[in-house]
């Protein structure tokens, strides 16, 4: 481990830009002419990067949108291709691969590249051409999942010099023998929006594809990133290891010009007092506020945190201001009349619309084009417009509710003021007091550029399995070579040989009997020659049609009669029983029955929900931001304990957080209530609040660490408590804390549970705690799909998840029967604990609890304290199943019997 701590000089932050003269000197005359005709100067990232790329130096560029990032990567490459073409030395092969996480982004780049290319060509013909035939012929080609077959065929005959593709399509290209040939001399690979890939399985997949490409040829790696931290991590992810055994990275230069864009940020509350205003009042005022903003700006981009909220906002804006807005209909909606409400005949002056991942690509493209053409007054999006698709001029970004991380806030707000020297204008609208505090601290951190750290996933087995399968399809290959190739990726530098061997065992079907192997094995492995290779004629087709890492999620349609209300997730449906009342889009509905993937409901007027909402798609609060909030709480606590007067505290809030007077006042009141009622929890003080409502006991942990960390802490404690009591424990997790819930009659041994919560046992505890959870079986299904244990496309037939009606629970239990430590099952656990949750942070917290670095205080309350209020009323609920299924049935049985005998008795 010591090695990792050594100062590594392979990652170098550049401090001095190259001179304009040096850069221009590297250009061929026609490119120089074109540059002068198009630009007045080099933008900051260009000053650093163009010459690097010219000299084949790996470079990571972090700069804001509108700073000429794309050309900072492409200028040197275009220049070189122009040079070769003019000398007639340009060959029919791929020189540069550009990888974008979004298909739409790829289309943009093609346009943005073809335009300068045309200009250069024209200039060349006017000024430098020696004859009529002497023309520049530089081709740009796009290959994504949408590329037509004939276009692909054309590409084989005449390959593009610059290939624009997605991570998935790159994986396919590497396995196509003919196209792979054209890649044998690739000089540059550009990874755009690399920040959005670095912390995801898509990124892990890409990192291995790059190593597969690296087996064929050495190339210069270029990463383009928005503002993220730490950039060294992203750079390591981009370049990988030269020598993984000695943890030596390939060298990389880092260009950080992310500081140059000016920000104008504010947190706003729709009402003066968030405490006294009613829920309805807050929401009504929010729409009035939004309408004011939209009306006073040219084009407004509104971000929400969930897809369903996106639709709701569009709908309500149109509803509340029918003279102002009409909605751009989805392609699906245009054909179906069931969803169109009667008011759609009234059309408002301006068009608004939604843009999110659940909408068809066709619709999204339509919205993007309307935006670019300036035809939309406002657009509401969840995460889909965060990335750098060109959406034209936006002069205001509104965030509804906390974006949960500084990086995300900057990314979203950065979508406004597209030009480099323009200010980005962002307004965050908060709806409750926790949100107010959170967003105010976030604003401070954003202004001070304290960016939350991303984490690159390591040793991901399902992606590894998919990529090894891909390699085996290319050709027979020695397993040691496979191991060494994969380890060059930053994500696999520490891959244990045993784990690697387990993946090979899985792929070669060693987990089933010899007779069954012909069904389950994907590759053959010859122990004597130590080679692996593909098995079966269908292997290549299977690989190509099932590649990728993005899981299929099924959405269940919710219908009221014939009207479509919205959608819920499949696991949520599984939890619903006839008569359950749940919340969807701000309304309550009563569940009647399900038919396949449609749930039929009736209106649940004024009923209390019986099932807590499912917040699986909700963004988690970043740990770093959580700690910033805790720090603020700590300061506040000290002011209150020190007996500071109100005026002084408000002054402090004002100075510390840059909020307005109303905001400062609300925050003061909130903390003052908590202080007077109980105590203020903070980074050095954990408060455990016992609240008993007569029926159930809540053990509330004021643990503001973000949902990812709290998930581990809460489940580990629930598991221990459940074990101690032999009964199920209900739990509820949010970003600001969590609680365990048991019937009032029971004694709660929370101190004992806390004592048993030891860092050295946490891995084992969590393995058991996850065992029967929905989240594990769902994630297992995803992992099984990535590792091709579940095949979405089989023999040319595509299976939607809906058609694959096979209970995830049954799949996971079948695999457990093979081996409880089956490699893909281990991956599902790793994904849950490390990617979805944050077990490492949880361990640190537990250490601090144990060493009393964090003081723990317990209180009993009659009503929940102010800080506990939001936690009690919302959050993500689950249950720690301690009782086994048999016991559960027995208990239900005796309950029913008691009911029956009671009735009999009455007769």
């Amino acid at each position: 481990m010591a090695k990792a701590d050594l100062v590594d000089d392979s990652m170098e932050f550049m401090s001095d830009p190259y001179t304009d003269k040096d850069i221009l000197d590297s250009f061929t005359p026609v490119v120089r002419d074109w540059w002068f005709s198009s630009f007045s100067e080099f933008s900051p990232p260009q000053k650093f990067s163009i010459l690097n790329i010219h000299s084949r130096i790996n470079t990571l560029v972090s700069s804001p949108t509108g700073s000429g990032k794309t050309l900072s990567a492409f200028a040197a490459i275009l220049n070189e291709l122009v040079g070769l073409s003019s000398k007639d030395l340009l060959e029919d092969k791929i020189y540069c691969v550009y990888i974008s996480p979004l298909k739409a982004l790829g289309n943009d780049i093609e346009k943005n590249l073809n335009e300068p290319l045309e200009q250069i060509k024209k200039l060349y013909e006017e000024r430098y051409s020696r004859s009529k035939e002497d023309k520049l012929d530089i081709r740009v080609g796009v290959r994504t999942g949408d590329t037509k077959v004939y276009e692909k065929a054309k590409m084989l005959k005449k390959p593009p010099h610059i290939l624009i593709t997605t991570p998935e399509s790159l994986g396919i290209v590497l396995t196509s023998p003919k196209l792979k040939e054209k890649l044998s001399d690739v000089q540059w690979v550009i990874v755009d929006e690399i920040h959005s890939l670095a912390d995801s399985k898509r990124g892990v997949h890409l990192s291995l594809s790059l190593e597969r490409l690296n087996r064929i040829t050495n190339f210069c790696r270029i990463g383009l990133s928005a503002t993220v931290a730490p950039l060294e991590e992203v750079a390591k992810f981009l370049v990988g290891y030269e020598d993984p055994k000695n943890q030596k990275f390939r060298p990389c230069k880092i260009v950080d010009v992310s500081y140059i864009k000016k920000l104008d940020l504010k947190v706003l509350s729709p009402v003066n007092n968030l405490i006294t205003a009613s829920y309805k009042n807050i929401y009504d005022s929010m729409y009035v506020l939004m309408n004011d903003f939209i009306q006073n700006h040219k084009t407004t981009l509104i971000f929400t945190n969930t897809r369903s909220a996106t639709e709701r906002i569009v709908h309500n804006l149109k509803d509340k201001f029918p003279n102002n807005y009409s909605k751009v209909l989805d392609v699906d909606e245009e054909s179906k009349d069931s969803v169109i409400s009667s008011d759609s005949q009234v059309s408002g002056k301006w068009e608004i619309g939604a843009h999110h991942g659940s909408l068809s690509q066709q619709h999204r493209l339509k919205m993007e084009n309307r935006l670019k053409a300036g035809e939309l007054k406002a657009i509401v999006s969840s995460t889909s417009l965060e990335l750098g698709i060109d959406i034209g001029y936006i002069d205001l970004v509104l965030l509804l509710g906390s974006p949960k991380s500084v990086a995300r806030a900057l990314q979203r707000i950065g979508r406004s003021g597209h030009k480099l020297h323009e200010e980005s204008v962002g307004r965050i609208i908060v709806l409750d007091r926790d949100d107010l505090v959170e967003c105010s601290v976030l604003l401070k951190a954003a202004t001070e550029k304290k960016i939350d750290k991303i984490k690159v996933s390591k040793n991901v087995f399902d992606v590894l399995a998919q990529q090894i399968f891909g390699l085996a399809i290319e050709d027979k290959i020695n397993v040691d070579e496979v191991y060494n190739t994969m380890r060059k990726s930053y994500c696999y530098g520490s891959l244990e040989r045993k784990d690697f061997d387990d993946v090979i065992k899985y792929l070669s079907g060693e987990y089933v009997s010899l007779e069954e192997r012909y069904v389950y094995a994907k590759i053959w492995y010859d122990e004597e020659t130590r080679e692996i290779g593909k098995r079966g004629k269908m292997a290549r087709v299977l690989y190509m049609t099932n590649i990728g890492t993005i899981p299929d999620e099924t959405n269940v349609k919710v219908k009221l009669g014939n009207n479509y209300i919205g959608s819920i997730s499949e696991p949520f449906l599984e939890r619903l029983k006839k008569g359950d009342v749940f919340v969807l889009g701000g309304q309550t509905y009563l569940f009647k029955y399900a038919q396949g993937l449609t749930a039929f409901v009736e209106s649940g007027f004024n009923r209390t929900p019986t099932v807590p909402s499912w917040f699986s798609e909700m963004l988690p609060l970043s740990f770093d931001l959580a700690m910033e909030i805790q720090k603020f709480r700590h300061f506040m606590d000290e002011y209150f304990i020190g007996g500071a007067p109100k005026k002084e505290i408000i002054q402090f809030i004002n100075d510390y957080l840059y909020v307005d007077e109303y905001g400062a006042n609300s925050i003061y009141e909130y903390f003052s209530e908590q202080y007077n009622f109980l105590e203020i929890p903070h980074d050095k003080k954990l408060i455990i609040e016992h609240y008993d409502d007569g029926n159930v006991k809540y053990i509330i942990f004021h643990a503001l660490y973000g949902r990812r960390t709290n998930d581990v802490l809460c489940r580990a404690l629930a598991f221990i408590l459940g074990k101690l009591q032999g009964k199920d424990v209900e739990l509820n997790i949010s970003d600001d804390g969590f609680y365990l819930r048991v019937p009032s009659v029971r004694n709660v041994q929370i101190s004992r549970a806390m004592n048993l919560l030891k860092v050295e046992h946490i891995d084992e505890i969590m393995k058991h705690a996850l065992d029967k959870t929905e989240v594990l079986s769902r994630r297992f299904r995803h992992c099984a799909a990535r590792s091709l244990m579940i095949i979405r496309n089989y023999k040319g037939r595509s299976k939607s998840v809906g058609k694959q009606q096979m209970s995830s629970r049954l799949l996971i239990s079948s695999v457990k029967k093979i081996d409880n430590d089956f490699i893909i099952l281990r991956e599902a656990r790793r994904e849950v604990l490390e990617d979805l949750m944050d077990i490492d942070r949880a361990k640190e917290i537990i250490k601090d609890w144990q060493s009393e670095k964090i003081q723990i205080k317990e209180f009993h309350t009659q009503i929940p304290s102010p800080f506990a209020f939001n936690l009690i009323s919302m959050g993500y609920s689950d249950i720690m199943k301690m009782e086994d299924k048999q016991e559960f049935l027995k208990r239900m049985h005796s309950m029913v019997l008691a009911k029956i005998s009671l009735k009999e008795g009455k007769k």
Partner: protein
Amino acid sequence: MEIISGINIIGPSLFFEKEKILVIGDVHIGQENSIHKMGFNIPLNQFKLINEFLENVVEELKPKTIIINGDLKHDFGKITNDEWDKITLFLKNLKKYSKVIIIGGNHDKILEPIIDKLDLQMSSYHKIVLENDFVYITHGDIIPHDLDYVTSNIIIIGHEHPAIKLKDNNRVEIFKSFLKGKYKDKTLIVMPSLNPISEGTDILSQKLLSPFLKEIKNNKTLGYFEAYILDDKNKVYFFGKLKGLGD
């Protein structure tokens, strides 16, 4: 546990105590294979589990007759090699111990070539005359009209794969279940599937398949049906009327 005088619940099957008749249904041999073809490359061991269950039951109860009440085979369209082998093996095994009667189900459209080879026949129902009762066993995908049906007073069907979701606070679990209630003037018994892969349809919240149950639901009398719930180890629990479980 006795579901009706003289007829016991044995796991997902029914046993006529005096007559020594075992009734099983909805075995869906080949489903594993068809699931595999749908892209699930995970060994499910279904066939092994079915055989294990039957071997134990046959050993213990020594039935003289085994009635297979429909959907022995899974694939509608064709006979896969896997199905051919497994069904042959399955029936041969049962034939060793007792007489085998096969009632056709909606999945059994092309079962005949296999059973012909084994000298077995398939019919649309089977009747059993008891001391006081006339039992009519049929798969349940259609409501029959023949004379035997009209004169019978107890109907046993499968087809539906009934199951029941039980819920306590946040915890929800689904269990296979037998159902017993009134259909017109007859007593109707609905059997769960013998197949361990099939969890079943939650009778209370999912759309029903069998015309018998659909009609009963339309008449709003489903609530009067009684549930006999099975746990994973095939133990039976009487849960009383469905309407007591709905809320």
